[in-house]
C-alpha cells in the first residue's frame, strides 16, 4: 500500500460524495420554488439508502468475484472480508477505501435520474424505485464494466463511468419521463427555474467533485490521475463555451444556465475518456459535447416527453458521445489503448456495443421497475398535490420564507 495513493483516494471519495449534495442544489435550483425541497430530498436521501444497500449486498453484487461475467458472487455479503488489506482492485489502497470510493458512484447514479421525474413523483414511489433500480440495474451494469463482467472483458473502455453511470442513468431517465408523463402546465405555463444562482453553484460543486470522480478513477495518485484531471478541466470548460456559442447562434443570446449545463455536459462526455485521451482530444470532446447536448435539448421540445431537468439530453446523449469519443480519441501513449483516430477502429465498435448493451438493459429493466412501482404505490402525486408542490404535499415543508 502507498500512503500517497491512500491520501488521494480518501480525498477523491470525499469529493465524489460532495457531488450528490451538489446535484441536490443543481436540480433544486432548476425546479419551481414549491418543489425545491422535494427535489433536493431525492439526492440527499439517496446518500443514505444506497449506502445501506451497498453494505448489505450491493458491493458484493458489483465487485464480488465474478460469476459468468454477469454478476458478483456473495463473498462480500455485508462486506464480510472487505477490510483494511490492499487490493483486490487496487494494490495501493485498502479494500475498504476502494469500496468507499465506488459507493459514491453508486449513490449519484440513481440520484441523476431524479431530474427526469422532478416535480411530480410520489416520495414513496421514488424510494421504492431507487431501491429496485440501484439493485437490479446499477449493481449488474457496474459489475459488467468494472467488476470483472463481460463488458470489461470485451475490452469496452469506461474510465470513470460514461456507460455505467451516465448512459445508464440517462436512458433510465428517458423511460421515467415517458412513464410519468408531462408535468401539469407543460407547454402552457412557464415551468422555469426558481433559483439559477443555486444551480450555477451546484454546477460548480459538481465540477469540483468531478476531479475526484475522474482522476480518482485512476485509483492511485500518479500520471494517469494527473492527465485525467487535466482533460476533465479542459472538456468542461470547452463544453461551457461551445454550448453558449450554440445558444448565441440559435437563439440570439448566451445564457448562464447554458454555461452551467455545458460544463456538466463536458464533464459527462470526458468521463469515460478521462484516462485515455490527451488535452487536444479533450478540447474536441468538450466542444462537441456542448453543441450536441444543446441540440439534444432543443430536439426534446419536439419529441414531446417531459424530461424535466434534461437528464437525457445531458447525461444520456453526453454519455453516449463520451463512450464513442473514447473509441475515437483513445491514445496508447496516455492510457494504453488506441481508438479509431490512432489506428484502432475496432475500439469504436466495442464502445458502441458496450453502450448498446447498457441502453437495452437499462430501458427494459427501468420499464419493468416502473410498472412494478406503479402497481405497488402509484408513481405520480395527484393533481391537487402537484399543484401544491412536492414540498408541501410530500414533506409538509416550505423552502423559503424570505
Amino acid at each position, binding site marked *: 500500500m502507498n500512503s500517497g495513493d491512500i491520501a488521494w483516494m480518501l480525498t477523491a471519495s470525499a469529493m465524489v460524495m460532495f457531488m450528490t449534495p451538489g446535484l441536490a442544489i443543481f436540480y433544486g435550483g432548476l425546479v419551481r420554488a414549491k418543489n425545491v425541497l422535494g427535489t433536493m430530498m431525492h439526492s440527499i436521501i439517496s446518500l443514505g439508502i444506497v449506502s445501506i444497500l451497498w453494505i448489505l449486498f450491493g458491493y458484493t453484487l458489483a465487485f464480488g468475484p465474478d460469476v459468468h461475467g454477469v454478476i458478483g458472487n456473495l463473498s462480500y455479503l455485508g462486506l464480510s472480508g472487505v477490510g483494511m488489506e490492499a487490493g483486490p482492485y487496487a494494490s495501493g489502497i485498502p479494500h475498504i477505501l476502494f469500496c468507499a470510493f465506488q459507493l459514491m458512484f453508486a449513490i449519484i447514479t440513481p440520484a441523476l435520474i431524479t431530474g427526469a421525474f422532478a416535480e411530480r413523483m410520489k416520495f414513496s414511489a421514488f424510494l421504492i424505485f431507487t431501491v429496485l433500480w440501484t439493485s437490479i440495474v446499477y449493481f449488474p451494469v457496474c459489475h459488467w464494466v468494472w467488476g470483472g463482467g463481460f463488458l470489461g472483458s470485451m475490452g469496452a473502455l469506461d474510465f470513470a463511468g460514461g456507460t455505467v453511470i451516465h448512459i445508464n442513468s440517462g436512458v433510465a431517465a428517458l423511460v421515467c419521463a415517458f412513464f410519468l408523463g408531462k408535468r401539469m*402546465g407543460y407547454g*402552457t*405555463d412557464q415551468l422555469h427555474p426558481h433559483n439559477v444562482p443555486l444551480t450555477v453553484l451546484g454546477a460548480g460543486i459538481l465540477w469540483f467533485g468531478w476531479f475526484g470522480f475522474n482522476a480518482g478513477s485512476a485509483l492511485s495518485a500518479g500520471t494517469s490521475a494527473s492527465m485525467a484531471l487535466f482533460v476533465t478541466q479542459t472538456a468542461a470548460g470547452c463544453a461551457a463555451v461551445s454550448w453558449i456559442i450554440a445558444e448565441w447562434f440559435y437563439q440570439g443570446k448566451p445564457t448562464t444556465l447554458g454555461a452551467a449545463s455545458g460544463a456538466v455536459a463536458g464533464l459527462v462526455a470526458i468521463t469515460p475518456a478521462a484516462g485515455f485521451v490527451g488535452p487536444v482530444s479533450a478540447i474536441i470532446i468538450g466542444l462537441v459535447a456542448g453543441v450536441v447536448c444543446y441540440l439534444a435539448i432543443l430536439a426534446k421540445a419536439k419529441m414531446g416527453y417531459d424530461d424535466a431537468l434534461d437528464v437525457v439530453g445531458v447525461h444520456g446523449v453526453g454519455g453516449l458521445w463520451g463512450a464513442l469519443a473514447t473509441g475515437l480519441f483513445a491514445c496508447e501513449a496516455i492510457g494504453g489503448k488506441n481508438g479509431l483516430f490512432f489506428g484502432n477502429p475496432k475500439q469504436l465498435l466495442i464502445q458502441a456495443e458496450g453502450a448498446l448493451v447498457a441502453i437495452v438493459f437499462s430501458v427494459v429493466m427501468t420499464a419493468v421497475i416502473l410498472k412494478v412501482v406503479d402497481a405497488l404505490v402509484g408513481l405520480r402525486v395527484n393533481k391537487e398535490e402537484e*399543484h*401544491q408542490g412536492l414540498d*408541501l404535499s410530500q*414533506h*409538509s*415543508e*416550505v423552502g423559503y420564507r424570505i
Partner: protein
Amino acid sequence: MKKIEAIIKPFKLDDVKEALNEIGIQGMTISEVKGHGRQKGHKEIYRGAEYVVDFIPKVKIEIVVDDAMVDKVVETVVSAANTNKIGDGKIFVIPVEQAVRVRTGERGADAI
C-alpha cells in the same frame, strides 16, 4: 369608472388574463397576496410539530374600467377563475373618481 379587484387562485392568473384580453381589456395590475377565509390552510411540520398555515397564497388583479364594462369584466373573471372549489376567491367593485395616465397627463376614460 370602477376598480374591479379580483382575488383568485394563483394558477388561474394566466387564464384570467387571456380571457380579459379577449374581451379587449389589456390594462391590469396584479399583486401577490395571502388570503384567509373558508378554505382550509395547509399543514407544515417543523421539528416534529404540526402547524396549520391558514394564510393561503392568492393573486389580486386590479382592473380599472369604464362603468359600462364592469359587468362584462366581472363575468369574465368569474368564469375564467372558477374551479368550483372553496377558495376560488372574490371580486369587489370599488368606485374610482379619477384616472390619470402618467406619461401624457390624460384623464378619465382616456387614461385607461
